[in-house]
């Protein structure tokens, strides 16, 4: 099994990891009081105006934006030029949600029609990405043809692509030509000795390379590509897969290396390695990190470098807000039968409504933050929130497919991640077990904020030491969290309550059991 049960022995391992990462701390994590510590949650005051303009509507680059704006991926790039031990290209399942997986491949023409259809149906869809299912730059003709078609018909849609970087240096000028202003490179190592355990081979210059040599070539091409992009002012996000025992400690070095070459955002993701996916890591029993191991690594890399914590590791054909997937509504068959009229004015009108909503949320947070001024305490804790979006506590506990995790301290409420859970209310799947799964997924939280919750789960959560909180139904998450936290501190102060640290939590792997 790759998932660790949470017990005392693993707590020991976790302490060890945290200790090893402590060296890298202090690069500004607990910086000035005015500066937001988390870049991906950062607002216009935290970055240069031209960069804010680029990221503010991009759900994958701005944590704050991802509550309001949607993205879509089109699967036009099936071929890949490297092999990764966490990927199995034979696996395809519509219930499975992870990178590299896709149900149907599209031609550039089909993709362009799909983009227009989705953009008309979902006005908050602002970003089109090409992320595979292979590597976009191993399919340059299909990738750039798609960009060209969309650039012509819907110039307001932001274009981005996600690559392993091997062929990146060859295509930087074309990327710039189509005004692709966001590029994600997956960089799991800067040391080929480590890379050989992640990449069994690469195909480069008509030859298959293996071992350290393969990893060295890949590394050199990735660094060159990253430098060439940042030179041209193209925003770069770096994705890294955290593989405990292989590159977990090393990712701190990766973080330094990409930061020094101008990467804008670093997204450290947990390894997905369920045995049924048939990946090398799945077969060898390589486990993924626990929630606290992942958070410790993300915390230690945070500083001058923005960290992304809201990644949902979505499919290469995902459609919708992050964490939701509406791709089933837009199959090729349905799209080709649709009359699509691209109405950019309607989209603009909708988006300005979103801006008003968004501003209200920011103001609510600021108002409550003022209320925290003067409070001082070392206590910081996590809460889980059931939300449907718009930054509100508005989901029923039993309907939540994931919980958003916020870290509360006297500095405010900070988004630090999310946890996937099975649908609890799905009848017939054994409710007892589902509830236990949810508790394991949010076991490091002190409270769970929900719009509503039934009597039974409420009692079980309370018994597990997680307080179910219903009183903020329909209200802004951060404002609610801070209000609750103030009351919590007050109770600790008066002795009505003793602050107890919580344990670790599991990161759920594999497919949702039921369709959304």
């Amino acid at each position, binding site marked *: 099994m790759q998932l660790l049960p949470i017990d005392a022995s693993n707590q020991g391992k976790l302490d060890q990891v945290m200790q090893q990462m402590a060296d890298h701390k202090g690069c500004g994590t607990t910086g000035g009081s005015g500066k937001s510590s988390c870049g991906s949650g950062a607002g216009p005051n935290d970055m240069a105006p031209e960069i804010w303009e680029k990221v503010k509507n991009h759900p994958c680059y701005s944590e704050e934006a991802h509550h309001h704006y949607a993205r879509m991926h089109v699967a036009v790039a*099936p*071929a*890949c030029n490297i*092999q990764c031990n966490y990927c199995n*290209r*034979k696996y395809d399942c519509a219930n499975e949600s992870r990178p590299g997986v896709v149900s149907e491949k599209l031609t550039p023409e089909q993709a362009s029609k799909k983009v227009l259809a989705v953009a008309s149906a979902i006005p908050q869809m602002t970003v089109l990405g090409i992320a595979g*299912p292979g590597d976009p730059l191993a*399919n340059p003709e299909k990738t750039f043809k798609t960009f060209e078609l969309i650039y012509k018909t819907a110039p307001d849609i932001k274009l981005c692509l996600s690559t392993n970087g091997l062929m990146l240096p060859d295509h930087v000028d074309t990327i710039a030509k189509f005004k692709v202003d966001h590029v994600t490179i997956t960089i799991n190592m800067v040391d080929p000795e480590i890379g050989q355990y992640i990449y069994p081979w690469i*195909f480069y210059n008509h030859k*298959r390379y293996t071992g350290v040599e393969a990893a060295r070539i890949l590394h050199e091409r990735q660094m060159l590509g990253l430098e060439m992009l940042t030179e041209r002012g193209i925003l770069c996000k770096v994705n890294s897969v955290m593989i405990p025992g292989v590159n977990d400690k090393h990712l701190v070095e990766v973080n330094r290396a990409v930061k020094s070459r101008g990467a804008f955002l670093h997204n450290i993701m947990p390894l997905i390695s369920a045995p049924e996916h048939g990946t090398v890591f799945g077969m060898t029993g390589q486990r993924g990190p626990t929630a606290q191991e992942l958070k410790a690594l993300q915390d230690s890399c945070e500083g001058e470098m923005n960290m992304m914590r809201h990644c949902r590791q979505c499919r290469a054909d995902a459609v919708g807000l992050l964490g939701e997937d509406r791709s089933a509504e837009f199959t090729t068959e349905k799209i080709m039968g649709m009359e699509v009229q691209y109405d950019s004015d309607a989209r603009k009108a909708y988006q300005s409504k979103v801006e008003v909503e968004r501003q209200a949320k920011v103001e609510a947070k600021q108002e409550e933050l003022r209320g925290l001024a003067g409070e001082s305490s070392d206590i910081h804790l996590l809460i889980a929130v059931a939300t449907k979006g718009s930054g509100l506590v508005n989901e029923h506990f039993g309907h939540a497919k994931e919980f958003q995790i916020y870290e509360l301290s006297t500095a405010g409420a900070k988004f630090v991640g999310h946890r996937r859970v099975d649908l609890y209310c799905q009848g017939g799947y054994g409710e007892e077990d589902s509830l236990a799964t949810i508790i394991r997924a949010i076991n490091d939280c002190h409270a769970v904020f929900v719009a509503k919750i039934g009597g039974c789960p409420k009692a079980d959560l309370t018994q597990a030491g997680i307080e179910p909180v219903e009183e903020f139904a329909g209200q802004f998450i951060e404002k609610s969290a801070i209000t609750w936290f103030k009351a919590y501190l007050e109770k600790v102060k008066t002795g009505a309550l003793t602050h107890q640290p919580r344990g670790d939590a599991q990161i759920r792997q594999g497919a949702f059991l039921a369709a959304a």
Partner: protein
Amino acid sequence: MPLKIIDTQCTGCQACEQECPNVAISSKNGVCIINPKKCTECLGHYDTQQCVAVCPVENTIVFDDSLPRYQLRA
């Protein structure tokens, strides 16, 4: 003998199709197929068969034992 693709293992990713120097590979019903009349086993082009080297699934592109090996014309 030219190469063939074992279709039950093929992911249809078309990586081989892009690399083939002879344009011998095409896609049909979601899998790739090699035209044995066009395949030269990459002789005269590369040291290794490009389709074999780039294929993500091991032992999916193999020599077709039922056909004679390709001979470079002198």
